[in-house]
């Protein structure tokens, strides 16, 4: 499909000539570079609580963001009105960042090559609402039927379909249609008069509704959530202090997102404020660790055909055999540091300036058998699942909260323990990785990453790994 048949060209009668004239307006005060980001997002969200479908919401937002760069300066303006006058007015406001005569005579726009990492013919948002309501009802029924100790169930489903168009003064013209869907099940289980416990499971991706009917069904998430809550019913207080920690495969990859991912975003490194600044080529992890960020994996929540600055996503090696290899770049940082783009420029919406961000971040599989990893630990903690995490990129200190973990005693996983936060230091923590499993797993598709007030969907993944030393923040 060429530009004239694309969403914005058809729906809003936008032509290549229009785009070129808006870019010329944006550069009329002498900026070095300008780009336009058109966005049209339709969303649906449903939830069931107390077996009642209490809420259903749909909505539409649209707008255009216009950016002008001169040197290291950025001017930004946006409009939620796509009439030519309003777009020109926004372009004029963004242009104010620069001061000088226009240096650009004409931008020749070139359509980027097309690929389709999420070939979803009918997006979830384009199906009947009844089909989607059935998903939350099924999740509710499955969770309630799973165990008599389940006392509360909330199931939610949300999808969005995002159409974007990027045009830049260096000639890039790209557009994309980005479906995204996610469901989640939260349960509360209680035994007699005891303390109730929560369990949560969820997932999705850039998928069609079939994903929830065939691959990861509402029953799958319901059972997983119930299982987690029931395990917590028998949990003892978590231990406190430094110990050997084994992370299970999948979502525990959030360790990588917090410990190294954010610290390798190029904006922080260009400014010299990251604990990883000026450390390319240095050993920052055990030689067993190779960590990549890959926005080009099919159907994944963190994947994009093109990033929000019009560059194709790719696999970027962050750490190779323990050695720091590269940073995640956005347009501004790659211009200033004369680095190659990595397809990592992302933004929450047309109202936001793009930044370097992660997509799907994971560690490559190693050679150890996961069972052998557990057997090698006389005393420690096994973490099967986590809630959220956070990092201070300057000191490098990061945390993530275990939501399902167990004691390891004499090489066996034994008693479940209550939630606890784990803390470490980014450039140090992975040096203690002494075993990496052969069981790489990506998460099921629930991740949301926040940075400077902007949220974007991401994925993580990890094989089973053993960290010889990590601080566990329990009370026992």
């Amino acid at each position, binding site marked *: 499909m060429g530009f004239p048949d694309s969403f914005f060209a058809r729906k809003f009668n936008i032509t290549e000539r229009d785009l070129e004239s808006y870019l010329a307006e944006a550069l009329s005060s002498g900026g070095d570079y300008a780009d336009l980001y058109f966005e049209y997002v339709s969303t649906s969200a449903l939830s069931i609580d107390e077996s009642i*479908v209490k809420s259903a919401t749909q909505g539409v937002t649209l707008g255009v963001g216009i950016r002008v760069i001169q040197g290291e*300066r950025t001017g930004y303006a*946006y409009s939620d009105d796509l009439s030519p006058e309003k777009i020109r007015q926004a372009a004029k406001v963004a242009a104010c960042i620069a001061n000088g005569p226009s240096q650009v005579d004409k931008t020749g726009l070139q359509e980027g090559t097309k690929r389709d990492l999420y070939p979803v013919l009918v997006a979830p948002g384009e199906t009947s*609402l009844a089909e989607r309501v059935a998903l939350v009802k099924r999740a509710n029924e499955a969770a309630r039927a799973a165990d008599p100790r389940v006392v509360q169930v909330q199931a939610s489903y949300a999808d969005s379909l995002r159409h974007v168009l990027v045009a830049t003064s260096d000639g890039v013209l790209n557009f994309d249609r980005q479906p995204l869907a996610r469901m989640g099940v939260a349960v*509360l289980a209680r035994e007699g008069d005891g303390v109730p416990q929560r369990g949560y499971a969820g997932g999705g991706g850039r998928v069609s509704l079939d994903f929830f009917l065939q691959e990861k069904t509402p029953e799958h998430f319901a059972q997983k959530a119930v299982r987690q809550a029931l395990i917590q019913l028998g949990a003892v207080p978590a231990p*406190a202090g430094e110990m050997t920690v084994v992370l299970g495969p999948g979502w525990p990859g959030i360790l990588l997102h917090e410990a190294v991912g954010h610290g390798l975003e190029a904006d922080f490194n260009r400014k010299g404020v990251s604990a990883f600044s000026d450390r390319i080529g240095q050993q920052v992890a055990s030689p067993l660790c190779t960590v990549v960020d890959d926005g080009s994996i099919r159907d994944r929540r963190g994947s994009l055909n093109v990033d929000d600055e019009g560059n194709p996503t790719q696999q970027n090696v962050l750490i190779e055999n323990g050695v720091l290899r590269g940073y995640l770049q956005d347009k501004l940082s790659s211009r200033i540091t004369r680095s190659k783009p990595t397809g990592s420029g992302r933004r929450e919406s047309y109202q936001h300036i793009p930044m370097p961000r992660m997509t799907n971040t994971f560690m490559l599989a190693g050679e150890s058998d996961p069972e052998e990893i557990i057997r090698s630990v006389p005393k420690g903690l096994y973490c099967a699942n986590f809630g959220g995490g956070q990092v201070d990129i300057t000191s490098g*200190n990061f945390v993530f909260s275990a939501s399902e973990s167990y004691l390891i005693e004499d090489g066996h996983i034994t008693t479940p323990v*209550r*939630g606890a936060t784990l803390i470490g230091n980014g450039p140090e923590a992975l040096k203690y990785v002494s075993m990496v499993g052969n069981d790489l797993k990506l998460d099921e598709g629930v991740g949301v990453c926040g940075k400077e007030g902007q949220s974007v969907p991401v994925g993580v993944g990890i094989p089973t790994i053993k960290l010889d030393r990590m601080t566990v923040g*329990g009370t026992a």
Partner: protein
Amino acid sequence: MNLEELASGVIEQAKKGGATGAECTVSEGDHFSASVRMGEIESLQEAGSRGAGVRVLIGKNAGSAYTSDLSDDGIAHMVRSALDLAKITSEDPFAGLPDASELGKMTGDLELYSDSVVQLPASTKIEWAKRAEAAALAADPRIANSEGASFDTRVGSTVFANSLGFLGSYRSSSCSISAVPVAKQNGSMERDFWFSIARSVDALENPEDVGRKAAERALRRLGARKVSTQKAPVIFEPRVARTLLDNIFDAISGDSVYRSETFLAGKLGQKVATEKLTVVDDATIPKLFGSSPFDDEGVPPRRTAVIQDGVLQSWLLNSYTARKLGLRTTGNASRGITGNAGVGHGNFYIPKGAVDPADIIKSVKRGLYVTELIGFGVNIVTGDYSRGAAGLWIENGELAYPVSEITIASTLQEMLSNLEAIGSDLEFRGALASPTLLIAEMTISGQ
């Protein structure tokens, strides 16, 4: 475009389309942001946006929709969409609007809007951000780098209407200045921030004070060590103490209560904290960021003592959670532009205590003074609490050296019971505010 007419029109369209009840929110706002770094402008951002949302009821079935397209077509599509959705939701016996007798607005000016914010020229905003950063950089030679400083302003209008005849609107403004310096010494690098936020320009702290305070905070973190794992008293400085109010709010919010998803379920009227503790919600205080003339269902705000002298006195409720619990709304409905209302807080704070914060530090022989908390390790259902921390170690009543890469853990139940001192240093920097707090004992996990 007249936003009040727009909102009333949405209600009419919804009723014509078959809604037996409807609520509409319309908002518009303008945002300006200037960021500077190392003395140079880094970015300037200026834009406005608008949006409308509607929630309809057909009997006891609710549906919601929103749009940023305020054209006639965009609005008509939104209303149709909400009506369609009300046909696929289930009948909820508790769904509804507030009782008509509960609707109303606070009279008198809450002073939420000041023209000074709009009148301040962009060049001044940039200049003040530069001054804040310059003050931070000049504070000490070890402040060698900066993540910059910024000046942000927002002005906006909010309109709310419902099918019971409520129509209200108010304007609000805010301006804020912040600085994020980076301190470096012997391979240790630390950043911290400070900010000031106000409804009017004259109430902002001066840029130099913001910059210097941010620098002091970053500097005192340099050379942080890890301490050994132990149980010890923990002092929360005001900036981190306010995060405990977030946790308390989650535990007394009607949504958590009717589902019994809070460690405080069933405890109304009981002692849940030391007698020293009182927690108040009050959306009627002029100029503060938790104030508004009506809540997001059109109910007037009020002052509610949630915990009084250690006894749990009240939940915070909207009309739905009130009906679920057989109580009356406390005027705490909150929502974005659309959807069923959730529960939100107004100015939610711990009134100031009697002890000078310096004396609280002096009273601790060995313990932790927390200046930063990271992560999400708080479980409202069980009360389990475990978060990453950084701060200063106290030896013999003195702040001795910085510590980091540690966690603090306990349960919220024990923390509320073990609250040993409340400082006299209450100040509002946003809707949540707490003085310095001393908790007698928590588990500190380190080496």
